[in-house]
């Protein structure tokens, strides 16, 4: 097995071995086959749950692995969404222009993250203050976009449209002779699913690599990491950029999903939700984060369908319960409990075999 592939399993990820990867492959396979036996509405919903996973995984990387609590990943989410809107509305869906729009929607969040991250990490901003700075940025973005209702707020032919949000951007389109491939419905679901698998597997390799080792070292003790010769601020900046680009991926996929983006996607509520998903599942593990994100976005939707705004209150309750009773996150806590019990059983079994001869 090549060395990079061996990094799929390692000290920084829960779940390993054949059983785990068998279940993983099974889930991916079933998910991929879903469009053949469920209706279009269900597929649209499933796509929606997966869309958020990228921002959550990015936050898990920044917060859970590197120990930097960013409260404003939605700034990058919104920036990516609006960037796709402005570029794709102006350039249309001919040729590869929608893909160019997609690419630029990831480049801009990266540039913003480098800019913000440089001043934060090289300026000595630490701990809770990173959260305050990033939250301020996303709220400023929201406030700014909300006041762009007037007709003077247009970029080319794209109207920003204030609090009502921007809509009618074209879907991703790939030129293919007479019948261009339009990523819509099942094909968009497959695209999002493939991206989710790719990012999840890629992140497993990243967090178990030497780079990942340094990230957890910085989380545990930045002074020691520095005294082992690691350029702590550069690592922090780099991981912040990766996580922010992932938030951008979610933003642009969300915009494509509904052909719609609004300022409230960068508001306080929107900014708090990723924190809840990541904390509830277990921020120090990407598998736990992924599961919790899909589960909680599904739950939010179910609750919203039944009782409108109460969904958010329930999210708050879940966060409180987790913080109080399973501060490492629900999935991580359960996983560790099971692992410890198995180990104890193994020790007990070993004792039995040792004590037999003397009996």
């Amino acid at each position, binding site marked *: 097995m090549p*060395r990079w592939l061996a990094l799929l399993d390692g*000290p920084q990820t829960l779940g390993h071995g054949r059983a785990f990867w068998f279940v993983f492959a099974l889930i991916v396979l079933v998910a991929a086959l879903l469009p053949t036996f469920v209706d279009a509405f269900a597929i649209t919903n499933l796509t929606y749950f997966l869309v958020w996973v990228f921002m959550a995984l990015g936050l898990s990387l920044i917060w859970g692995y590197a120990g930097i609590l960013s409260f404003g990943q939605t700034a990058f989410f919104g920036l990516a969404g609006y960037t796709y809107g402005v570029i794709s509305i102006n350039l249309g869906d001919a040729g590869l222009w929608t893909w160019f729009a997609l690419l630029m929607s990831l480049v801009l969040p990266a540039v913003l993250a480098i800019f913000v991250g440089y001043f934060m990490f090289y300026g000595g901003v630490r701990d809770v203050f990173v959260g305050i700075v990033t939250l301020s940025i996303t709220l400023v973005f929201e406030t700014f976009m909300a006041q762009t209702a007037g007709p003077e707020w247009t970029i080319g032919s794209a109207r920003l449209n204030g609090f009502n949000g921007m809509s009618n951007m074209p879907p991703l389109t790939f030129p293919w002779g007479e019948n261009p491939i339009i990523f819509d419905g099942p094909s968009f679901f497959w695209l999002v699913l493939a991206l989710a698998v790719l990012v999840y597997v890629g992140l497993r390799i990243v967090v178990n690599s*030497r780079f990942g*080792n*340094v990230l*957890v*070292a910085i989380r*545990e*003790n930045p*002074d*020691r*990491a*520095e*005294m*082992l*010769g*690691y*350029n*702590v601020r550069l690592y922090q900046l780099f991981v912040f950029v990766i996580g922010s680009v992932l938030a951008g991926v979610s933003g642009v996929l969300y915009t494509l999903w509904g052909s719609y983006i609004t300022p409230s996607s960068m508001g306080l509520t929107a900014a708090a939700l990723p924190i809840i998903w990541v904390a509830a599942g277990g921020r120090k593990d990407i598998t736990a984060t992924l599961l919790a994100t899909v589960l909680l976005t599904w739950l939010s939707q179910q609750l919203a369908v039944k009782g409108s705004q109460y969904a958010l209150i329930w999210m708050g309750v879940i966060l409180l319960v987790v913080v109080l009773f399973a501060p490492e996150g629900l999935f991580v806590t359960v996983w560790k409990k099971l692992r410890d019990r198995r180990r104890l059983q193994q020790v007990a079994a070993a004792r039995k075999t040792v004590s037999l001869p003397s009996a």
Partner: protein
Amino acid sequence: MATILQTRGLKKYFGGLRAINGVDLAIEEGELRCLIGPNGAGKSTLFKLILGSYRPSEGAILFKGEDITKLQPHLRVQRGMSIKFQVPGIFLQLPVEQNLRIALQRAHRGAALDQALERLLELIDLGHRRSELAANLSHGQQQWLEIAMAVALQPAVLLLDEPTAGMSHEETFKTGELVKKLNASGMTIVVIEHDMAFVRQIAKRVTVLHFGEVFDDGSLDEIVRNEDVVRIYLGKV
């Protein structure tokens, strides 16, 4: 022998406090030097200046002939310095083995890393607790783990800030033998220590700091004969 680490007229003020007030220190290659002095003498501050956690108010620091006064801390480490902090600075929520791997991986890869890891575990006698979280180790074992992490970088100069704090007599003695062994292998070591038995066990040369200045310097026997040194430790000067 060549001077490997040198401070020239080093000063550090915190507001009105002169923590370090003109220290000229020259450490020779291969030396094992002890820094002693009463609490607040500026010993730890001196280490922090040498490694770049603090910027000096005045003066210069030279390492292997290069002026490193304005160099960032991680670059000083990359040039061959390493430190064990006063308060154990390890990765508490990671297993012992992972602590050492993170220290080793900058210079080692693959099989060479595994070998170096085994050697370090043997050096600090923690092979049997390798998969345990560092937080579960005893205080003495945590100190050893941090020493091993500092040693993992194969530094030219190793700075140890109170390596035996909180250790039993037996542990302190073992630490002394460990320090002597490292020094015999060619590593230059500077130790801050309060435990005089420990200093006697390891040191060839001792520097006494007092009120941020070098008060006395020489072999331990010479130092002990100096009545002023005895007095400052009793707090009379």
